[in-house]
């Protein structure tokens, strides 16, 4: 028995260790790739000798270092640049090499990702585009073929009466829009806000004029729903959402909010989403923990704003419906902290100006621009776009989700990398937590009541429910990725862990259903298992799986739960239910062994 117990402790330690390691990986791997565009190539170094150093010379020296150097190119004999691969102790070897008098420099070999630096003269002032990694992202997509509808004060997109197109939108593609305020076909901007937002999404770029925009090869659809004072009514907004959807928009940008809940707008957003359109909205500028409508509707992506430091701007609203953070500017230290675009002078709409704005509207435009890039890169549905946006976002403070930043800070490059990947990588961390909890449960059982560790794990009746509750059928997408119709739905279900089936049933809202994220399913199972002993291993696997899933969700603070009046209740809810699951599992395992 003592040996068994010891084995148990070792297993527990290993499981916890693996879980901890894999948890630790999230920050650094994501962080490293987003902080540094260059990546070190494993086992490779570059050594720069004094000019004119010959191969015979360094061939003699390299024996002491235990590596094999070669000239990097035909330039080698002149510039002395050499490389070596398969180096094991890189830092140790480099220290030795650097001590050699003929060595000018020696360092790990890095791969530089291609970046695109537009020639727009004020591009260097656009910290916001570097913050969301546009120079790398532009190498992957520039938005060609995507259509973004801008529901705002209009756009300075053509010359009509006294209206003039702003110079830095010349060459950008526009599709037919509409003016819902005046009910005519001239959605020209008489305010300046809409043109600024449109500029962030698709300012003419690499045109030696002004500034850059995100999806400058995408088409813009100007829809005027806000009047000269920046106000609009729900009927116009709902009509414009449906107009955009029916006229081929992929993305709807709504840098507007307020007016409270509107069933008419909510239905229009749901309609757009059903037709494959991603709806992106501003969280609001009140600076308090309440997301404004329409951002708060389940079908919309809610965006908060950050400044150059990456911290939430004081004016930005936040809350439990928040999805993602993006640069909105912070001008407290000066106008250079704002978002610079070409727009019109508010007092003279025919006059072009470059102005630095701040607000969650600006942040929203960044997300819409990146959504357009994702459609251009091959994304078909809002689910796909949102998943790429959220999974690609850089977590803030190590949290997978928070009220201030949602899934993190927008990262165009990482999100674009996620499009076109046929398999979604299953997350094994909940499974590892479940395994650790299983060991704990078994340790608390007396020798007579306890089933063997391996007997349990290798019994399909136990193991399969455990797997389904923590990772789902992890190979389903890989095996049946191209399926459509009913088969595709089945694949969707199978590839999600059971608690996340609520996403399919209740739609992919941002908040999890607390009944699925609870002990309810294992508890109901345990009632049936009272009468039917054969069900006990199944319920035990399910319960320990749920315990692992809920514990992991609590640990990662992801995601928020629906219906709970206060967000801080989510954590105790998850923990209490995880504990409940552990007790269900223990009861099931105990009786199963007592047979």
């Amino acid at each position: 028995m003592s040996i068994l117990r010891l084995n148990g402790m070792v297993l527990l330690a290993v499981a916890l260790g693996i879980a901890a390691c894999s948890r630790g990986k999230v920050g650094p791997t994501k962080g490293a790739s987003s902080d540094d565009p260059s990546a070190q190539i494993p086992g490779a170094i570059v050594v720069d000798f004094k000019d004119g150093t010959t191969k015979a010379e360094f061939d003699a020296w390299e024996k002491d270092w235990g590596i094999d150097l070669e000239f990097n190119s035909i330039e080698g004999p002149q510039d002395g640049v050499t490389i070596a691969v398969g180096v094991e102790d890189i830092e140790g070897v480099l220290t030795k090499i650097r001590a050699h008098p003929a060595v000018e420099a020696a360092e790990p070999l890095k791969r530089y990702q291609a970046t695109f630096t537009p020639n727009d003269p004020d591009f260097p002032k656009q910290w916001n585009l570097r913050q969301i990694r546009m120079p790398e992202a532009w190498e992957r997509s520039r938005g060609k073929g995507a259509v973004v509808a801008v529901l705002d004060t209009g756009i300075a997109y053509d010359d009509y009466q006294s209206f003039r197109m702003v110079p830095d939108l010349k060459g950008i593609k526009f599709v037919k829009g509409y003016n819902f305020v005046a009910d005519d076909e001239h959605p020209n901007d008489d305010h300046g806000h809409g043109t600024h937002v449109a500029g962030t999404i698709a300012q003419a770029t690499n045109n030696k004029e002004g500034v850059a925009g995100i999806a400058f090869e995408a088409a813009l659809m100007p829809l005027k729903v806000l009047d000269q004072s920046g106000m609009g009514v729900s009927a116009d907004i709902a009509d414009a959402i449906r107009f955009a959807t029916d006229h081929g928009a992929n993305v709807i940008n709504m840098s507007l909010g307020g007016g409270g809940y509107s069933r008419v707008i909510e239905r229009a957003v749901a309609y757009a989403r059903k037709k494959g359109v991603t709806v992106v909205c501003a969280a609001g500028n009140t600076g308090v923990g309440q997301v404004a409508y329409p951002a708060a509707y389940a079908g919309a992506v809610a965006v908060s704003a950050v400044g150059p430091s990456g911290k939430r701007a004081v004016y930005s609203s936040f809350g439990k419906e928040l999805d993602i953070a993006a640069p909105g500017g912070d001008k407290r230290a000066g106008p250079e902290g704002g978002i610079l675009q070409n727009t019109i002078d508010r007092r003279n709409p025919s006059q072009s100006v470059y102005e630095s704005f701040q607000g969650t509207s600006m942040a929203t435009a960044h997300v819409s621009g990146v959504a357009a890039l994702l459609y251009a890169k091959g994304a078909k549905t809002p689910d796909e776009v949102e998943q790429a946006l959220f999974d690609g976002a850089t977590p803030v403070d190590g949290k997978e989700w928070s009220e201030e930043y949602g899934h993190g800070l927008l990262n165009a490059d990482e999100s674009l990398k996620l499009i076109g990947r046929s398999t979604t990588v299953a997350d094994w961390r909940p499974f590892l937590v479940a395994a650790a909890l299983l060991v704990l449960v078994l340790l608390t059982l007396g020798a007579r009541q306890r089933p063997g560790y391996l007997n349990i794990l290798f019994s399909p009746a136990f193991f399969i429910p455990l797997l389904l509750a923590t990772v789902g059928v992890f190979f389903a997408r890989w095996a049946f990725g191209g399926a459509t119709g009913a088969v595709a739905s089945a694949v969707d279900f199978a590839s999600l862990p059971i608690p996340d089936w609520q996403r399919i049933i209740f739609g992919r809202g941002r908040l999890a259903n607390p009944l699925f994220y609870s002990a309810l399913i294992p508890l109901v199972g345990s009632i049936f298992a009272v009468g039917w002993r054969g069900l006990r291993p199944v319920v035990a696997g399910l319960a320990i799986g749920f315990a692992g899933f809920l514990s992991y969700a609590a640990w990662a603070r992801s995601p928020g739960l629906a219906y709970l009046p206060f967000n801080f209740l989510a954590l105790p809810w998850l923990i209490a239910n995880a504990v409940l699951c552990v007790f269900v599992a223990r009861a099931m395992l105990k009786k199963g062994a007592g047979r």
Partner: protein
Amino acid sequence: MKLTGTVSLRDLEGGIWVLEGDDGRTYEIVGGDRRLRTKGQRIQVEGEVDAGAASLAMVGPVLKVKSYRPLR
């Protein structure tokens, strides 16, 4: 309804005129003339809150000004 407060220009979305109400709330000002829009001015407003209006400001309830008078 009558409201008193201080007029202020918020540097948001290109510039938003608000009334920092003595009730602790921030109202987006719609209507009124140019003289109303004086930074730091204390005023009493006769107007109504338009609960159904959406706007690009998103700073709080929209206050439609019917008339106002400066306070000293």
